[in-house]
């Protein structure tokens, strides 16, 4: 039996990779897990960078949605969604089908490339 998914993202949470990169979509016997959150508190919310362990490799990723209810008027997703990213901020995949919250547009400078490949905004 497995525990239910954690609400906000912290160390050892299983996440769902949402873009169409090869790393994120090839099946592996272990789900991708967060090993570090780049934040003063160890809790990651939408727009935070985390370190992911996927297929035996370490990769940075950006949180685009979590199960924890945030401020009113912001969307709450049914799964913890994450987009794989390089160290300089370039996304690895080429398309993001799942909806992304509009609040990420506030930090247009850092996430412009991720927002450019996103299709739907909620």
């Amino acid at each position: 039996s497995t525990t239910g998914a954690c609400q906000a993202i912290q160390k050892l949470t299983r996440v769902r990779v949402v873009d169409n990169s090869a790393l994120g979509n090839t099946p592996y016997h272990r789900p991708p897990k967060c090993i570090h959150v780049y934040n003063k508190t160890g809790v990651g919310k939408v727009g935070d960078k985390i370190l992911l362990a996927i297929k035996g490799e370490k990769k940075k990723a950006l949180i685009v949605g979590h199960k924890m209810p945030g401020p009113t008027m912001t969307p709450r997703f049914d799964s913890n969604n994450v987009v794989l990213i390089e160290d300089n901020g370039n996304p690895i995949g080429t398309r993001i089908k799942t909806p992304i919250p509009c609040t990420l547009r506030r930090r247009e400078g850092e996430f412009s490339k991720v927002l450019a490949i996103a299709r739907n905004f909620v």
Partner: protein
Amino acid sequence: RVSSDGKPPKFQPPPKPVIIDRKTQKEERRFLSPEFIPPRGRTAPLKYYIERKDMIQRRKVFNIPEFYVGHVLAVTTADPYASDKSKRFVGICIQRGGKGLGATFVLRNVIEDQGVEICYELYSPRIQAIEVLKLEKRLDENLMYLRDALPEYSTFDVNMKPVPRMDHEEIPVNKLQVRMKPKPWSKRWERPKYNIKGIKFELPEHKMKAAQKWSQPWLEFDMLREYDTSKIEAKIWKELSEELEK
């Protein structure tokens, strides 16, 4: 007609016309939004009176339609970070909470296989329009179990056209029994504390019986928990209708 006597037939007055007064029938059904009813407590009623005045002010400027849990709504909000500065979200209302100006409602929809829920504040100035697309009450007042139900029950087309309203009288109740994903669920919906009638439980009999162990049948007879709102509602309704006519 020729009668047997030869005298003219007895005068029979014409049947009285039955007047169906549509206007009075409309007024019989009054809907008071649940956030107007003050919660039970020891706060001074002045606070709720002032809040109600602000709520009425907002309602005069912006029309908040009558809706219940289970309706499909489309909400347009103002967002500086969205293209065209406004955002439209369509979803089924699963919960209405909060009292006074902080009243909220949660809309749920499944977009591209991803379930999304947004909690909107009814009286927020960011909301530009609320349209009711489908009028339908459900068997429960809290549809949080849709999170553990199969995703087909929460999907609604974003470009759905508003279903025209038939009568100005009754809102139809949809007696849909929703099928769930396999357990584990986020909450144990089979327990009597949630009192859910809208799920088709496919659990074995012994599990349903075991869930009844947590039933608290004495709660409905508890007099200290009674909160009779009929008089309060009548007063608030009078106040509302007076203010809105001005």
